[in-house]
């Protein structure tokens, strides 16, 4: 998957657990875990906004693009 999710890194830097973040932004912890592992089809802008607000970061801090090698 070319899009790498660095949410676990940001959570560690902000010393916050997935459960706390999920509760604060109002999504299920299971969905946040799926997001962390990159096993989602997409992220809504309002979810991204809520995560960036809580973790005081930019979307680029959470998402990284690594093109797949042919």
């Amino acid at each position: 998957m070319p899009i790498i999710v660095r949410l676990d890194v940001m959570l560690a830097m902000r010393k916050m657990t997935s459960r706390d973040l999920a509760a604060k932004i109002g999504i299920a912890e299971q969905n946040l875990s799926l997001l962390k592992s990159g096993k989602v089809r997409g992220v809504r802008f309002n979810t991204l906004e809520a995560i960036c607000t809580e973790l005081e970061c930019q979307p680029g801090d959470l998402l990284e693009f690594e093109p797949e090698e042919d």
Partner: protein
Amino acid sequence: MLINTQSVSDAAWRLRVILGTIAVVHVVFILGLIVAAFWNPAFVGDTLGAWAGYENGERMMWQNFALVAMACVGLFMWAMMLTLAARVFGQIADGEVDEAATIARRLTLWFWAMFVLALLSPMILSVISTWHMPEGQKELSLALNSGQLSLALSALITGCMARALAVGAELWREHREVV
């Protein structure tokens, strides 16, 4: 969850209950018809014959039971279709749209089967009801009426609904994979 499906689930649940209840009523009718047929086959045969438009004389015992069998087959098919329709809405109420689509496809096949039965019934009923009549008064009828056309239309609509449910299920899966 951005989409509130509660109103759809509630409506689907109500339909499930209503259709399921009507299906049970059909089963009760079938059982009642069978009991009545054994209790007074001539009366039941005459009544069914009159409903089919053949109020003509003393039928033989097998004719009466054949008419009862025809009526039971029709009632049974309606009961099956109502049960399947109830299950479709039950699955929608439970959020299992994929399963609802599968059952709707089966319901479509039952509608087509009912359409075929509706086409053949006048012919079969006319033969059964007039078998005891003298030569020249026996009948073999064919009929095409709005009831049969309604069944064909219902089959087409149900088939389209099944496809729409399948597409809806795919969209719902995609929706759930977006956080």
